[in-house]
């Protein structure tokens, strides 16, 4: 279980201080796939990077806790954190090819991780790397070992990154938009691969995406983020059946669905800029059920049910 509590992150930008995350709460249950959904710029990647403690130096964590293995990751020394990264928590990034170093063959980072965290060297490490590459469905892993990133397609690079993430059997994998940069046909293969590996190893996964189809396909629990807050959090089945937050409803309505006669409906307006955050609830300028109170007061998480939280003053009303 990985738990993020009240995580608040701010960025220095010249004289200003921009708050990117406003008290994010997140529970990533062991052995389950937890989705983190939202539009670009809502703070999904910042959350993941904060968990890994890999935020840009311009960012700083104002308050909050990240509890893992009974410890607060934010309280660990950089040295201790190096034993968590890659070994206990691994991350898969948005752009697979850019995550691989262009001057080394793709086996280099694998062997590096195996040596660093599992103490394997020489032929043992090479053998293990090769079997990992085979495990993620790369054909002719021996040839792939020697290939440079630019010899491989995007999908193959992402398979290498998945192998790299799994190399040390981490407790948690943070997958940041693992399929977004890939062709649609390749996306499906990667999703199938991730699903298979998740079941096989009982992995705990945080899946960051803006693709609700992918969430429906993979996730057990879903957290919807908007403007640096988790606005709704529920088991996937519940969220898709009865979304409560008007933003979640908007997201659901904006989906293209097969067999549906109704056209998808876009949410009017767009995500507010960090510099011009509206007062009160950040969603109220775009919200169909907003009232005066919404502009004055930022709602706190409200329990709809066990395991279902919503940040909205009026979630009980206007429900379809």
């Amino acid at each position, binding site marked *: 279980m990985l738990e993020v509590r009240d995580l608040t992150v701010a960025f220095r930008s010249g004289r200003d201080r921009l708050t990117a995350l406003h008290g994010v709460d997140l529970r990533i249950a062991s052995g389950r796939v937890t989705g983190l959904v939202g539009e670009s710029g809502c703070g999904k990647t910042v959350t993941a*990077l904060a968990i*890994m403690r*890999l935020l840009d*130096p311009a960012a700083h964590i104002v308050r909050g806790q990240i509890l893992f293995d009974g410890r607060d990751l934010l309280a660990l020394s*950089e*040295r201790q954190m*190096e*034993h*968590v*990264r*890659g*070994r206990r928590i*691994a*991350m898969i*990034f*948005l*752009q697979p090819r*850019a*995550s*691989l*170093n*262009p*001057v*080394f*063959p793709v086996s280099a*980072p694998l062997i*590096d*991780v195996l040596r*660093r*965290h599992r103490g394997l060297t020489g032929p043992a490490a090479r053998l293990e790397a090769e079997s990992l590459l085979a495990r993620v*469905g790369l*054909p*002719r892993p021996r*040839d*792939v070992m*020697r*290939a*440079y990133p*630019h*010899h*491989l*397609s995007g*999908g*193959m690079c992402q398979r290498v*990154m998945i192998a*790299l993430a799994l190399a040390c059997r981490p407790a948690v994998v943070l997958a940041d938009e693992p399929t977004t940069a890939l062709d649609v046909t*390749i996306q499906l*293969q990667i999703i199938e691969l991730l699903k298979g590996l998740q079941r096989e190893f009982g992995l705990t996964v945080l899946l960051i995406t803006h693709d609700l189809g992918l969430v429906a396909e993979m996730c057990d629990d879903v957290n919807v983020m908007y403007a640096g807050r988790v606005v709704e959090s529920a088991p996937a089945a519940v969220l898709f059946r009865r979304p409560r937050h008007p933003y979640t409803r908007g997201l659901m309505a904006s989906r293209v669905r097969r067999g549906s006669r109704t056209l998808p409906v876009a949410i009017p307006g767009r995500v507010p800029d960090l510099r011009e955050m509206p007062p009160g609830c950040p969603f109220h300028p775009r919200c169909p059920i907003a009232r005066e109170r919404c502009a004055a007061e930022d709602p706190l998480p409200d329990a709809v049910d066990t395991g279902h939280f919503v940040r909205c003053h009026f979630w009980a009303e206007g429900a379809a």
Partner: protein
Amino acid sequence: MRLAADAGPRRSVWSGASDLWRAHPITLAGAAVIALVALAGMAAPVVAPFDPLTVNPAEALRPPGGPHLMGTDDFGQDIWSRVLWGARLDLEIALGAVAVALLAGCTLGAVAGFWGGWADEVVMRSMDILQAFPSFILAMGIAAALGPSFRNLVVSVALINVAVYARLMRARLLVVKQALYATAARGAGNPPWRVLLVHLLPNCLTPIFVQSSLQSGWAILTAAGLSFVGLGVRIPEPEWGVMVAMGVARVTAGSWWVSFYPGLCIALVVMGFNLVGDGLQDLLDPQRR
């Protein structure tokens, strides 16, 4: 499943390089010149027909021909032998100076670029000071302050180039440290120093190597220049700059060969290094592997 891995990985680096040589004959010519000069320098003790320092007044200022392939100078020293020994000395100075400048400059640039902040300020402002002087004047100043000797010549030629490497390294690091693979390397549990040394530095080296080749040419020119004005290696030593200096007064008197041959060598080597520098850019591109 697409298979894009078919073409590349089997070919060795060397066969790739030989293709490139064929495609870039001018680079090859430059490399050949340098190789030839290096060989001449290494073989000088065996090949040179005369001792480069033996004075023989009876044979002074003989024109090229006979036993003296390139003639003799004021002291009757054989110019061909001295040119061969000079190849050794000049390459030592050039490579020594480049190696010192490269090590010092890259270290400073890496520290400045990777850690930023006050370290960056201190290093780069010091480099600004170094670069504020015209480089040859600065080299003259340093050489004059340290006194003329082989070691001091290397140090002064190196010092004027430190800033070039520091800047190159810093600029390149500022780019690559933002790369996703840098974050990915940290995410795999690498400590910062390892990210810098193992993951980022190899991505910074191409411009450094290209610059080193160009700088080797310039280093020879600077070293010869310093020796020419009397601040480098001293007069009887077989160094090309010194030899040119010795012959300058004789050129108008008709003894052109005293300055001509060492001067020609300087020009050839500088050209060779420059040609190789241009070709290295392509050769070192990781996309070619």
